[in-house]
Each structure stands twice: as structure tokens, then as C-alpha cells.
């Protein structure tokens, strides 16, 4: 599954994109990422699955694209 990072999260994680396998829902994904990148757990972000923002948990498929996005600051 493709995981995308944006803004300051690119610096927190050290990459714009990760491929992670064997993850079945958002909670499992964020737990795993927080363990791997402790600073991420302290960062504010929302999760989008296939470009739709998701609040709460949701089942994930291997072909979903998951984005972790810090607060927007365009304009």
C-alpha cells in the first residue's frame, strides 16, 4: 500500500512516500507509523484515503493510496 507524506511530515518521516504491506486498517497503519517515527505521533495531521479525508478508522485495501497531511497552509 502506498503511503504519501506532505508538508512538515516529509521532514518528520524523512521521505515523501513509503510502501507498506500487510496493513488492513487506518488504526493499524498509524500505530505502525508512530512506532517507526515517534515524532509523527506528536504531529497534527489528517488522513486521506484515495483523496478523501477520513475521520475515524476504515478498512484499507492494498490498492488504496493513503495520504498523511498536516494542516493546510496554502494561499
Amino acid at each position: 500500500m502506498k503511503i504519501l507524506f506532505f508538508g512538515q511530515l516529509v521532514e518528520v518521516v524523512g521521505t515523501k512516500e513509503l510502501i507498506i504491506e500487510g496493513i488492513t486498517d487506518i488504526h493499524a497503519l498509524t500505530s505502525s507509523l508512530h512506532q517507526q517515527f515517534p515524532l509523527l505521533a506528536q504531529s497534527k495531521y489528517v488522513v486521506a484515503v484515495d483523496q478523501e479525508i477520513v475521520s475515524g478508522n476504515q478498512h484499507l485495501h492494498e490498492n488504496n493510496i493513503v495520504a498523511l497531511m498536516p494542516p493546510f497552509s496554502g494561499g
Partner: protein
Amino acid sequence: MKERTPKNIFIQGAISSAFIADSIQKHSTKTDIGGHSIFLGQVRADEIEGKKVVAIEYTVYEEMALQKMHEIREAVFAEYPLTCMHVYHSLGKVAAGEICLFVFTSSAHRKAATEACSVLVERIKAELPVWGAEILEDETHQWKVNQ
């Protein structure tokens, strides 16, 4: 209602005043327009802990931003009787004093253009997945926070 497909709103670097003038000029053939409302975002040279912001570098989740902008555009067209709506946002580096956002609405009577322009600016800042890093004069940066 006319179908509108997602348009690219992103421009690499600053938005020039010549580009804005050209965009205004193109509307002179649309003689049902009575008022244009324009918002321009300009990069401020804020001081952060004694260091000046020299530029903002913008990054985007482009596919998502264009889809979201398409939704916003449709919603605003549905709510206000607009003749035209144009939105341009910079990507990459924009120096202090340069224009990074250009929102342009037109309508027969001024109220629709003015209100729609304000709504667009608010929604763009709140809903588009765009991030600005404020580049300081010592080449460090900090992430912009929208009000």
C-alpha cells in the same frame, strides 16, 4: 448546469502582474459583466525570531487539490450568479512581495462577484491540500500556519 472538468490552477513560481492584466483584459469581450472582484495573496516578509521571511515555498497534493478545487468551483457557481471564475495558486518558491494567489470572479451585478470571491479565498485556504514553508534569510525554514 454546464459540466466543468478539473482545471489546473497551479503555476510554477510567482504570479506576474502581466498575467493578471492579461486575465482582466480577456473579459472586455464579455459585455454582460458589470463587476469584477479580485483577491491577490502576496508573500509577507514577516520577522520570525529576528529572521526575515525571504520567500514561501509551496508544495501540494496535486490530484487531490485539483479535485477539491473542482468541487469548490461547482459549489460556488451553483450558489452565485457568476459569469466567470478564475483561480491561480503558486507552487515552488515565491519571494516576499510577489503574488502567490489570484482569485478572480465576475458577475453582472457586483454583489455576487464580491461575495463569491471572499468565499473562494476562505475555502482555498481551508480546504486545498497545499503547504507553505517560510524560507528565512539564514536558509532555515518554518511551516506556515493559516489563520
